[in-house]
C-alpha cells in the first residue's frame, strides 16, 4: 500500500459547487479504487411533499429540488398532476412552458459546458461560456421574473404571460445568443487543447450506456438514441422542430459537443415557438382532489426525469416520487473512474453535469 495515495474529492472542493464525496485511491495518480457518497444533500423532500405541502404547493417545492432545471421538476409534477386530474392545458400555456423549458436547457447546458472547461483548467472558455450564458439568464429573468427559480408553470397552465414588449427583447437577445452559441459550438468542437484533453477520456461506450441505463446527454454522446422529448409527449416538441442529437464516442468531448449542438437546436425551437405562439388562455383552474396514480417522464437538461405521484382524494398527496437523471447516471460514473488519471476526474465528473441536490433530494 506504500504507493497508494488517498485523494478525497469533495464534499467541499473548488471544482464542485455541490457536496458529493469521492474518495479515490490512486497509484501514480491512476485511480485504482473509488468510493462514492452522494447523500449530502438529502433533505427529505419526498417525505415533505407527502406530508407537509398541499398538492398545489408541491410544484414550488419540487422546483427547489434543483435550481438548474427547476422548470423540469415543476413540469414533471404538473404534467403528472394534470394527467391524473384530467386537466386540459391551453395550447398557449404549453408553448410558454416549452419556451421556458428550452431556455432552461440552454442555460443549464451552457453552465455544464463552461464548468467542464473551468475544471479542465480552461478559465477563459469558462468565462466566455458564462458570459454568453448571461444572455439566457436575462431572458429567463424577463420571462419569469427570476433568474433561477422560475416558478413559471403551475397546475393548469403557467403563471405569467408573454407580453409583446418582452417578446421583442427576447427576439433580440435570442439573435445574439444564436451567434454566440454557434461560436461556442466551434470552440468546443475544434479547440485543440480540449480535444487533446477530452477526446477518449472518460469514455462511456454504447453497450455500457445501455447496460447501465445511462440517460441524457451522456447517453446520446455514447450513441444511444434516447431522449424523452421524442418518447413522451408532455409538450409539443414535434411542432417546433425538435431534432435528436446523437454522437458516437462517449467521451467528455462528445458529451460537451452534444450539449453544444442541443443548445443550437433549442435556440431554433425557441425561434419557432416565438413565431408560432398560439393565442389564448394561459391557465385553466384546477378543481377537485387528485386520486389514483400517475407517472410521467420528462427530458430535463441532464436527461430523463421520472415522476410518480399517487393521491387518495386528499389535499396532500400520498406519494411523490422523483427519479432524477443524475441518480440514474451515478452507477456508470462510478464504473468509469477506475484506471483513470486523477487529473481527469474533475472534468469527467462535471461532464456528467451531476446534480446531487436532485440525486439525494
Amino acid at each position, binding site marked *: 500500500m506504500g504507493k497508494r495515495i488517498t*485523494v*478525497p474529492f469533495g464534499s467541499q472542493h473548488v*471544482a464542485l459547487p455541490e457536496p458529493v464525496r469521492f474518495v479515490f485511491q490512486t497509484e501514480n495518480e491512476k485511480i485504482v479504487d473509488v468510493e462514492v457518497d452522494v447523500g449530502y444533500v438529502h433533505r427529505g423532500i419526498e417525505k415533505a411533499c407527502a406530508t407537509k405541502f398541499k398538492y398545489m404547493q408541491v410544484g414550488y417545492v419540487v422546483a427547489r429540488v434543483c435550481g438548474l432545471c427547476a422548470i423540469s421538476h415543476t413540469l414533471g409534477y404538473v404534467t403528472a398532476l394534470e394527467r391524473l386530474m384530467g386537466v386540459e392545458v391551453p395550447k398557449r400555456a404549453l408553448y410558454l412552458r416549452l419556451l421556458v423549458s428550452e431556455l432552461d436547457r440552454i442555460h443549464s447546458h451552457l453552465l455544464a459546458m463552461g464548468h467542464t472547461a473551468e475544471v479542465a*483548467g480552461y478559465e477563459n472558455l469558462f468565462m*466566455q461560456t458564462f*458570459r454568453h450564458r448571461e444572455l439566457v439568464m436575462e431572458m429567463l429573468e424577463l420571462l419569469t421574473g427570476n433568474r433561477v427559480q422560475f416558478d413559471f408553470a403551475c397546475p393548469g397552465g403557467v403563471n405569467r404571460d408573454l407580453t409583446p414588449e418582452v417578446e421583442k427583447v427576447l427576439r433580440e437577445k435570442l439573435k445574439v445568443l444564436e451567434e454566440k452559441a454557434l461560436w461556442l459550438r466551434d470552440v468546443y468542437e475544434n479547440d485543440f*487543447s480540449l480535444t487533446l484533453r477530452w477526446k477518449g477520456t472518460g469514455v462511456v461506450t454504447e453497450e455500457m450506456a445501455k447496460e447501465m441505463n445511462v440517460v441524457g446527454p451522456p447517453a446520446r454522446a455514447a450513441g444511444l438514441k434516447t431522449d424523452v422529448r421524442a418518447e413522451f409527449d408532455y409538450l409539443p416538441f414535434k411542432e417546433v422542430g425538435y431534432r435528436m442529437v446523437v454522437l458516437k464516442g462517449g467521451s467528455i468531448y462528445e458529451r460537451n459537443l452534444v450539449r453544444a449542438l442541443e443548445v443550437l437546436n433549442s435556440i431554433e425551437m425557441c425561434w419557432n415557438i416565438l413565431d408560432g405562439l398560439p393565442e389564448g388562455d394561459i391557465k385553466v383552474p384546477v378543481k377537485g382532489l387528485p386520486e389514483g396514480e400517475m407517472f410521467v417522464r420528462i427530458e430535463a437538461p441532464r436527461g430523463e426525469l421520472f415522476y410518480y405521484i399517487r393521491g387518495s382524494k386528499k389535499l396532500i398527496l400520498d406519494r411523490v416520487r422523483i427519479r432524477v437523471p443524475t441518480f440514474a447516471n451515478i452507477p456508470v460514473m462510478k464504473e468509469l473512474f477506475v484506471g483513470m488519471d486523477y*487529473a481527469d476526474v474533475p472534468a469527467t465528473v462535471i461532464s456528467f453535469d451531476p446534480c446531487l441536490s436532485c440525486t439525494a433530494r
Partner: protein
Amino acid sequence: MSYWTAFILTLFSPVIGGFIYGLERIVRARMQGRVGPPLLQPFYDFFKLMDKRSIIIHSFHAFMGVMYLIGTWFALFVLLSGGDLLIAIFFHVLSLAFLVVGGFSVRSPYSVIGAMRELLHMVAYEPLYVLSAAALYLVTGTFQVSGILRSEHVPLIYLPLLFTAVLFSLPAILKKSPFDTAEAHQEIIGGPEIEYSGKFYEAVYTAKWIEYVYAFFFIFLFAGGNHILGALLIIFAFFFFNLLDNVTARVNFRQMVAFHWYILIPLAVINLMLIALWRS
C-alpha cells in the same frame, strides 16, 4: 551588472514581481472580457495576509514555506549578480526543493501530489534550461550572466528555436495553463501551497512573484547585450504566455513531460546542433 544593482534589484524583486502579477491579472481579465482587479491587487493581498491569524500544520512545514521565499530570493540574486548561469538555474532547483519538501512533510494528499508534480515540472523544464545555458554559452562565449549581458551578439538571432521552446515552457515555470499541473487549482487546489495560511502563505505567494522576475530575466538574457530588445522580449513573452494561458486547457503531467521532452527539447537540440555546426 554590479553586485549593488543586483542587490537592489533583488531586494525590490517582490515589488516588481508583484506589479507583473497585478498586470497579469488585469490582462487576463481583459482577455476574458472582464474588468479585473486593480493593479495593486497583489499588494492588497499581501497586506491582508499579513493581518491574518496564522494557522499551521506543524512548524517544519511552515518554516519550509518561509525558506522557499528566502531560497527563491537567493536564487534570484545568484542569477542577477552576474554569476554562472548554470549555477543560477540549479539554485532555482534548490529553492524549489524547500517547497517540495515542505509539501511532502504534511499528510495532505493534495500537498503531496502537488509536491510530486512540482518535481515533475522540474523534470520537464530543467533540461531545457540547461540546454539554453549551453546555447547561450555557444553564442556569447561565456556562462557568466554579466558576460552575456555585455555580449555584442544577440543570442535570439542564433537561437530562434530554442527561444521558442523556452517561451513555451514559461508556463511550466510560472505554473500557468497549460502547464499548471503542480498548482492545478481545480484538481489539487494549489498543490504544495494548500496547507499554508496567513503569513506563511504570504511567503509562498511572494516567492511566486520573485519567480516571475526570475523567469522574465531569463528571457531577457536572450537579447544579450541589446537591452532594449530585451525589454521588448519581456513584453512579448508576457503577452505571449498570457495568451497561451487563456487559450489552452490544462494538460496532465504526462502530457506536460512528454511535450517538453519530445517536442521542446528536440527543438532546442536541433537549434543547438545547427549553430554548433555552423560555428565549426
